C-alpha cells in the first residue's frame, strides 16, 4: 500500500442514509478475479440509465464532480456485504476518503486496508458538509484533522495503528508475518486443537 498523509480535494455528496455495498458495486460485477477496473461500475445502477448513458441527476455525473477525491455520504455508509470490491471500486474511480457520521464495520476495515480513508464526523459537521457539496477540504491524516474552507480545523477519530499503517504505507500482512514465531508457539501451547 502507498503511504497516504494528506488529501486535498473538493467533495461529492450522496446524502442518502444506509448506502450498502450492493449499491456501491452490484453483485453481478463481482465475477472478476482482479481488483482493477471496478471504478467504471461504481454505483452502476444509480449512475447509469438502462442504455448506458449517465443519469443526469446523479451527483457523480455532475461536471463539478470530476476529479473529486472525497465522498460525503449519508449515515451508515458501506453496510451489508463484506465485498472488498466496494473500496476497490471507489479507489479505482478516484476517491481517497469517505466522510459520514457512521461507517459500517467491515467496509471501514476493508477501506483502511486499501488506503481509502474513513472519516467519521459529528451530526453538525455532517449537516454542513451535506449542505455544501463541492467545497474544498483538507484532510491531514498525520494530525487526524479536517480543515474546512472557513478555516475551521476539526479532529476526527482514527485507530492509532490504522493511521500508522496509512501514513507509513505499511503492509499489514508483513506485520502479521513478523509474528510467525509467536503464532507457532500459540499453536503448540493450546489445550485443544481445532
Amino acid at each position, binding site marked *: 500500500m502507498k503511504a497516504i498523509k494528506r488529501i486535498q480535494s473538493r467533495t461529492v455528496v450522496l446524502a442518502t442514509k444506509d448506502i450498502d455495498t450492493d449499491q456501491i458495486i*452490484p453483485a453481478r460485477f463481482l*465475477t472478476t478475479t482482479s481488483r482493477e477496473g471496478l471504478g467504471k461500475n461504481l454505483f452502476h445502477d444509480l449512475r447509469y440509465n438502462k442504455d448506458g448513458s449517465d443519469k443526469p441527476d446523479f451527483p457523480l455525473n455532475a461536471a463539478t464532480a470530476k476529479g473529486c477525491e472525497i465522498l460525503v455520504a449519508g449515515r451508515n455508509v458501506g453496510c451489508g456485504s463484506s465485498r*472488498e470490491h466496494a473500496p476497490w471500486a471507489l479507489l479505482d474511480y478516484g476517491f481517497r476518503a469517505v466522510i459520514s457520521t457512521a461507517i459500517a464495520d467491515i467496509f471501514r476495515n476493508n477501506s483502511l486496508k486499501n488506503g481509502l480513508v474513513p472519516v467519521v464526523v459529528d451530526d453538525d459537521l455532517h449537516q454542513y458538509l451535506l449542505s455544501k457539496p463541492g467545497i474544498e477540504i483538507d484532510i491531514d491524516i498525520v494530525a487526524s484533522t479536517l480543515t474546512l474552507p472557513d478555516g475551521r480545523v476539526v479532529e476526527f477519530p482514527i485507530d492509532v495503528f490504522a493511521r500508522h499503517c496509512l501514513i507509513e504505507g505499511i503492509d499489514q500482512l508483513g506485520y502479521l508475518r513478523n509474528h510467525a514465531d509467536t503464532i507457532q508457539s500459540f*499453536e503448540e501451547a493450546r489445550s485443544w486443537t481445532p
Partner: protein
Amino acid sequence: MTQASTLFDKLWNDHVVVPETPNAPAVLYIDLHIVHEVTTPQAFSLLREKGLPVRRPDLTLATMDHSTPTTPLASFKDLPIVADGAANQIRQMEKNCRDFGIELLGFGSEHRGIVHVIGPELGATQPGKTIVCGDSHSSTHGAFGAFAFGIGTTEVGHVLATQCLLQRKPKTMAINIDGQMPDGVSAKDLILAIIGEIGVEGGTGYVLEYRGNAIRSFNMEQRMTVCNMSIEAGARAGLIAPDDTTFEYLHGRPRVPRGVDWDKAVTRWQALRTDDAATYDKSVTLDVRCLQPMVTFGTNPGMVIGVNDPVPDAGNDPSFRKALDYMQLTPGKPLSHNSIDVVFIGSCTNGRISDLEQAAAILRGHKIAAGVRMLVVPGSQQIKNEAEARGLDIIFKKAGAEWREAGCSMCIGMNGDIVKPGQLSVSTSNRNFEGRQGIGARTILASPATAAASAIRGRVTDPRSI
C-alpha cells in the same frame, strides 16, 4: 476467583496470540477459514506474488456457492455457467485449491453447498472456535457459540498466509428475548423484529449475544437464522451459548471428535456461557409474547412491519421516501395491497431442511397463484437429498414451484437466478437492498411460511390464515 466473563470474553481470550495495546490490535487466531469462489481470487493472487503458502490448509475449507448455477441437470459437471466471468472464477477456484492443497467441496461433491450451511452440516462449525469467511453472513456460525465474522479479501489473504487476523476487541450487547414465541411465528420473524428494534446500524461495533428461554427452545436451524442476520444490524457477530441442543445437533457429524475426544470437547464446550456476574456493554430486551410474522417494506432489513400492518409514512425523511419510491408501495396500506411476481425460498438464512419443511407444510395440496414464479433452492446438496427423501420436492413441484440445485441463487442474483426489473419478490433471504435480487428488483423479506403462503395467494399473506 477469576473475574466474571461473558461468553464472548471467553472466546476472545482463548484466541489471543498477541494481546491488543492502544498502539496495535490483537493478533487473533482463526480455527476455521471457509473460502468460496467470489471473494478469494485476489487473495490467492497475493500469495502467489509473495511466494507464500497457505499456512494451515487443514483449517481451510473451500466450496462454490455464490455464482454457481442451480439449474437441475443430470450431470452437474456439464452445467452451463451463466457468465464467462463466473466460469473463470470457478476454474480459478479449482486451480487455487489444487495449487495450495486446500480441500474443495466443488462440483460433484455431495457436500457442496452454501458456505454457512455446509460448515455446520459437516460439524466443522463447533463451539469455541473462531470462524471467518469472506462473506458477511459468517455470523451464522455464532449459533454454536463460535466467534464467527465476515472479512474482506485482504483479510482472507491474511488468514491464508498466517491463520491470524489483526482485530480490536468489539463491545458486547445482550439481546434478551423475554417470553415464549407465539405459535405460527418463526425465528426469521424474531430476527427481523430485532433488527427493526435496534436498527441497521444499532449493532455496529458489537457482538450480539442472544439470550432467553425463547432462544433456548429454538433448534439449531432456528438459532442459525437468528445469528445469520446479526450483520443486518451492523454487528460484528452474533452468539448463542452452546447447550444440549447444540451437542445433540453436532453428535456424529463427519468432522466432530469421536469417543473420548467427543466427551472432552463437550466438557470444554459446557463452560462456554456468560457467567452470572458478568456484564455487557449494552443490553436490549424484546418481549416476544405478541410477536407477529414480520415482513420488510423498504430497502434495508430494518424497515420492517407486522405482516398485516400498514406501510408507514415517510414523514420528512428523504432516505425513507427514496426507499418507498423504489418499492412503489402505498403508505397506509398493508403489503397485501400489492400483487407479487416472485417467491424465493432458500439462502444461508432460510435454506435448511426445517425451512423447506415449513414452506412445504403450507404448500401441501395448494397451487401457487397464476403469474407467480416460485424458486425453491436448498442450502446444500445434502439438504437437497434429504428433502427429496422426504418427498418435499414433489410438494413444491406439484404446487408449481421450481426445485433447484444448491447455491446462493436469487439471494444475491450472481448466477442468473434474478428477479426482473420492477418485479415484486417475497424472499426468505437476508437483504432487500435496491437491486440485490436483480436490477430494479423489489424485495420483501419474510419467513419460509410467509413466503409460501404469499405464493399461494399471489399477495403477501399471513401464514396463519392458510
